[in-house]
């Protein structure tokens, strides 16, 4: 496999929130990359730091209480974390180079500004075009994301649209700005099932047509295995396993990944069969143990795990398959 140049490379990212109960290490030494025209999924439970990681790269962390403590994010050869959060350079990255799509389509658009005005404002922020040209680009973008009667829709307010429609508008922003990378943070979670599939298909279609890359942040491992090239699994602010989708499904190494895969509901399962769950709850990020963070919930926990420090990512297979576990487990063994 020829070495491709990474589109975005994040190294040793650390983000903490300073709260009354102490420092919450939301992102704890996270490194990942995405190549041109690649689809990468970041999977994990709520509160594992997967969204905060993306928000950190975009420098959209509320500060205070949040603070990016270290690390770099190389986009096209430049470390974008070096830019000041409100600087012109950073704003040029946001929206133009990297577009974000959020979980809550009902609240992600401004309720008192028309869709057209919101869309054209973003376009005119990044492209030197007249008001009229921007409007036409907006209409085209809406048409491209499959919104009927785009001309009329431009004059609508967000509350006059359905959730799926609004999520299409969010995608239209990325289309209009010709972004290199789209970060979709739980893009379909808040939608109903049929709309979920449509929006996801649209997103993949846009990625394919525009030759962009896509990072999908989700808690639904079952969903992303269908289209992601590679997967990062996060737990307690760290990446605990990464690899190609095929490797991760067929030979997961980390007990947490194994747990997640077992928890995916199967259509062919016996109707009386109970869904498998991972026992326990995610750890308190303000009081992380020195040992492996998954230890209290781990079904394979060995005595040695209690004595060893938190495990680092180690290569466990080809094609960049890494896992952070002291034990050498294969799913076949279970």
């Amino acid at each position, binding site marked *: 496999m020829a070495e491709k140049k990474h589109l975005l490379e994040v190294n040793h990212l650390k983000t903490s929130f300073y709260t009354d109960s102490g420092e919450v290490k939301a992102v704890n030494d996270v490194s990942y990359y995405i190549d041109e025209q690649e689809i990468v999924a970041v999977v994990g439970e709520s509160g594992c730091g997967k969204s905060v990681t993306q928000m950190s790269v975009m420098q959209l962390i509320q500060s205070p209480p949040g603070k990016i403590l270290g690390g770099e994010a190389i986009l096209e050869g430049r470390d974008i974390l070096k830019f000041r959060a409100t600087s012109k350079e950073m704003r040029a990255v946001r929206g133009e180079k990297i577009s974000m799509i959020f979980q*809550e389509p009902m*609240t992600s*658009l401004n309720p*008192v*500004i028309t869709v057209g005005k919101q869309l054209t404002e*973003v376009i005119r*922020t990044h492209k030197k075009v007249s008001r009229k040209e921007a409007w036409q680009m907006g209409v085209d973008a809406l048409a491209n994301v499959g919104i009927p009667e785009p001309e009329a829709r431009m004059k609508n*307010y967000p509350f006059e649209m359905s959730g799926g429609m609004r999520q299409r508008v969010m995608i239209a922003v990325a289309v209009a700005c010709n972004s290199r990378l789209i970060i979709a943070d739980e893009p379909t979670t808040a939608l109903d099932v049929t709309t979920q599939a449509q929006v996801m298909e649209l997103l993949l279609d846009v990625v394919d047509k525009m030759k962009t890359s896509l990072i999908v942040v989700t808690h639904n491992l079952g969903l992303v295995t269908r289209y992601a090239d590679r997967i990062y699994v996060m737990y307690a602010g760290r990446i605990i396993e990464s690899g190609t989708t095929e490797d991760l499904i067929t030979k997961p190494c980390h007990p947490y990944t194994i747990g997640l895969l077992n928890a995916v509901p199967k259509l062919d399962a016996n109707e009386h069969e109970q869904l498998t769950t991972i026992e326990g709850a995610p750890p308190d990020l303000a009081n992380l143990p020195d040992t492996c963070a998954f230890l209290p919930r781990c079904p394979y926990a060995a005595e040695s795990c209690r004595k060893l420090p938190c495990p680092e990512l180690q290569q466990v297979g080809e094609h960049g398959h890494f896992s952070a576990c002291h034990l050498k487990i294969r799913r076949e063994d279970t």
Partner: protein
Amino acid sequence: MGKYIIKRLAMSILIIFLVSVFAFSLMHILPGDPIRIALGESVSEETIAEYRAKYHLDKPIIQQYGLWVEGILHGDFGKSLLYGEDVTTLIKTKLPVTMAIGIPVVLISAVFGILFGVVTAVKRGTWIDQVITSIANIGIGVPQFWIAILCIFLFGLKLHVLPIQGYTAPSEDFGKYVYMAFLPVLCLSFGFIATITRQTRSNMLEVINQDYVRTARANGISEGSVIFRHALKNALIPVITIIGLQVRIIVGGSVVIERIFNIPGIGALLIRAITERDYFIIQACVLVISLVTVGCNFIVDLLYGVVDPRVRKSWR
């Protein structure tokens, strides 16, 4: 939209009608005969009867009310019971004075209140926020007359930079008007700015954490537009209510401030009329003030629709 406006308009007219009935009833509900108060004890019954006839007080109450309203519709508020002055002329001379103080107060309060509210919200937790918020808290807690006394003491008596009383009409000498009106406007604005600042600050803080503000930032929108276009427009909706309530002072004036600074406005007139039981003046003042108050509320209702499309939609 038309239906909503007509409904609000009908409601406003009903309120004004009720206020007029209430204001008119005052003279008849309160103990004491206004004519006897006006003329004193030592007048003959004939003179009193003559006086009564002159003011239509010898007629049935309903007819009196009818005559009063009819007069108002023709621009005639009646005559002062004590001095025989034409009430309409009185209002016409006093109202511009009160408005010359009230209008700058409302404008200054709105502009600075919103500005300070935005600044304190954006700079939350910094010393700027703490200083302005502390002053705003004082402004809300401290009564106007006390601030007025302090200002008179400091600027008038100690520093000798501003006059402590009096009034000059802007049409007469604009420079002198600014000079004379400075302290009363400052004292009246202080509390209003404080109220608007606090309201704007808390609304902005709420709005700034909304998803759509994050979206605007994520799309690379400049911070200025994020704050003043995306956030402020949403935060303004409750602030409009507060400002609308304050517009009343454009006509009502502040009784206390007009008294302290010896400004010959509606507030001062109303006080005089109440102490002397000059009923036609009281009625006229109450009616004019409530007319403007109701009018302002009506405009505020329309402004909601201008700012919030969801409200506009619900009108249809």
